[in-house]
């Protein structure tokens, strides 16, 4: 009798368990379907547009007239911010003599005044503070004159023409925040080492937030310091600006955090049959971790050294800068 009663009890328990299961599954299915309809489509678009930015389609380029091309080329005005410290002086010199000449304007923001070179004194040693003040200064002074703001450390070599090509036909009124992205938990941020690109709209939103301590604290991180590039991402996120990774039409990263030599060495190890193909994008914008000498070699290698008889049908036209002899 006891046995039967126990069995009966078990039966009613298991049936209520099963009933619960059914209800749970139905509930879950409903939620998933609803969520999918609302977010799903947007998510896919979001995924495509916001996280992997690729340059313009080549077929579209050929439909543009030559005059339109020249005008278009001039419509990209890039202001370069290079954050330096006194210890960087030899890299500073190299960077000054090389790629920064191809920015529409380049200025050096230093932690303190240095006798040898002109710079804008940020009067702080803290990278995040330097970054904020530099962005504030740049926006204040140049918001009417430049529409793209590129920030880098003097260890980086940048090819501004390739940056402009990448930005070609992007809607400049949209907030862009791009470079080489890294994911840290929930936060996707643009690594400082690869260089950070902000459109004028992003600069506007950033600057309006910089005065709000809760959104953009000067001292982020309670226990340990958060790197300045992460801080920037947090700040921009509040303004609805999200990091996007820049890739070429093959999916190769265009902003690089290491030097060409290092990528070549890695490719020699990992894919020895296709070293150059496995290395880097033809339209690379940045490389990082270069010595001053390597900056000069890159300048020659990018802007001068080439193979005769290889001609390119490019949509944009960029002239060499005045008063320069190493490009």
């Amino acid at each position: 009798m006891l046995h039967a009663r126990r069995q009966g009890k078990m039966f009613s328990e298991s049936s209520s368990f099963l009933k619960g299961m059914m209800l749970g599954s139905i509930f879950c299915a409903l939620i998933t379907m609803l969520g999918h309809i609302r977010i799903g489509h947007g998510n896919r678009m979001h995924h495509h547009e916001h996280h992997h930015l690729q340059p313009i389609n080549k077929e579209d380029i050929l439909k543009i007239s030559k005059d339109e091309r020249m005008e278009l080329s001039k419509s990209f005005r890039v202001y370069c911010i290079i954050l330096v410290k006194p210890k960087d002086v030899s890299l500073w010199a190299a960077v000054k003599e090389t790629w920064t000449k191809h920015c529409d304007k380049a200025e050096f923001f230093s932690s303190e005044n240095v006798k040898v070179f002109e710079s804008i004194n940020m009067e702080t040693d803290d990278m995040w503070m330097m970054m904020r003040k530099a962005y504030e200064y740049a926006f204040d002074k140049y918001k009417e004159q430049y529409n793209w703001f590129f920030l880098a450390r003097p260890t980086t070599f940048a090819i501004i023409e390739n940056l402009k090509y990448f930005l070609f036909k992007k809607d400049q009124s949209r907030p862009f925040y791009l470079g080489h992205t890294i994911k840290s938990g929930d936060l996707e941020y643009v690594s400082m080492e690869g260089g950070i690109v902000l459109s004028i709209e992003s600069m506007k939103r950033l600057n309006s937030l910089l005065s709000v301590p809760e959104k953009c604290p000067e001292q982020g991180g309670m226990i340990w310091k958060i790197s300045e590039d992460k801080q920037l991402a947090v700040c921009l996120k509040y303004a609805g600006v999200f990091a996007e990774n820049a890739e070429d039409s093959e999916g190769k990263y265009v902003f690089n955090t290491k030097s060409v030599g290092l990528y070549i060495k890695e490719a020699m190890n990992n894919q020895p049959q296709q070293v150059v193909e496995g290395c880097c994008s033809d339209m690379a914008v940045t490389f990082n971790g270069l010595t001053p000498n390597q900056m000069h070699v890159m300048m020659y290698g990018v802007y001068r050294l080439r193979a005769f008889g290889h001609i390119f049908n490019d949509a944009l036209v960029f002239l060499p800068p005045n008063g320069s002899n190493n490009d």
Partner: protein
Amino acid sequence: MASKSWLNFLTFFCGSLFGYFICSQLFSIFLGEQGDTQPSILHNDPHARHSDDSGHGHLEGQMDFNADVSQHTDENTDVSKKLYQKVKILCWVMTGPQNLEKKAKHVKATWAQRCNKVLFMSSEENIDFPAVGLKTKEGRDQLYWKTIKAFQYVHDHYLDDADWFMKADDDTYVVLDNLRWLLSKHDPEKPIYFGRRFKPYVKQGYMSGGAGYVLSKEALKRFVDAFKTDKCTHSSSIEDLALGRCMEILNVEAGDSRDTTGKETFHPFVPEHHLIRGYLPKTFWYWNYNYYPPVEGPGCCSDLAVSFHYVDPTTMYELEYLIYHLRPYGYLYRYQPALPANIGKEISEAYKNEDQKVKLGNP
């Protein structure tokens, strides 16, 4: 009873949680990953649809203009192709059994493919690489002997297959397109040779061995003949000097390989050594050897450089990337050299932009 209904409720609740969990797992598997995922390429993955690379084991110079298609769709290589047909260059690379895998392999993977024909010269034959066996010994003092035998081999087997005959080391990087541009202005039937000209010891100068040098067909014929008729000596421990002396004896002209702005094209060192002021100390032999006034800094090197020397394997690929891949989009180079006249006529229909005007670069 209260406890019984409480137990029922509990099992019902557990059941619903369990059901929800199972269902959500099934859905996520069924629908695949959603939301942001870091791209599966950690960095710089090769192309997903990359066609296999051009002929690996071929001795025949193979120009695979279809490699890397999508990155190069804006690229017009008509002029390069035309020059490939008009200015035939046979390259032979001085190497040895110990260096086939260490060095020569990387030459083969990069610039050697652009020669009309390439041969790897070693003391011993290697069928797999492939490398020609010259049946000599190895060592610095054997260099001239190897050079003589190599040129003899080339003369005996391939004289009619090329107009110009280039010698390079397994640590030399040669830009074949630029070499063709340089040689297109000259007649291979003339006795002449080109390289990085040094001034000591030989009146008309001689060409640096490491930077590579290239002989016209006539020069090759005379050189090979010189050993049959004892005009030149077989023994020497300094390969480039001995060859240079022999060339002078044979009335083979030491050509000027500088570009139209006077910048050197053949380089005995890597770009860094020439571009950085003060890298080579003023007491270094180089400053006294150069036939033309030596320059350091940006004026050291032509945009259309032909060769660099002491190039390690990593730098081979770096140069390949910088010369044939990475470029500044839309950039109007300062130095716009003229197309060789005869080639220009043939491609003039397809090539109608202002790049044809000669614009002198900064010295």
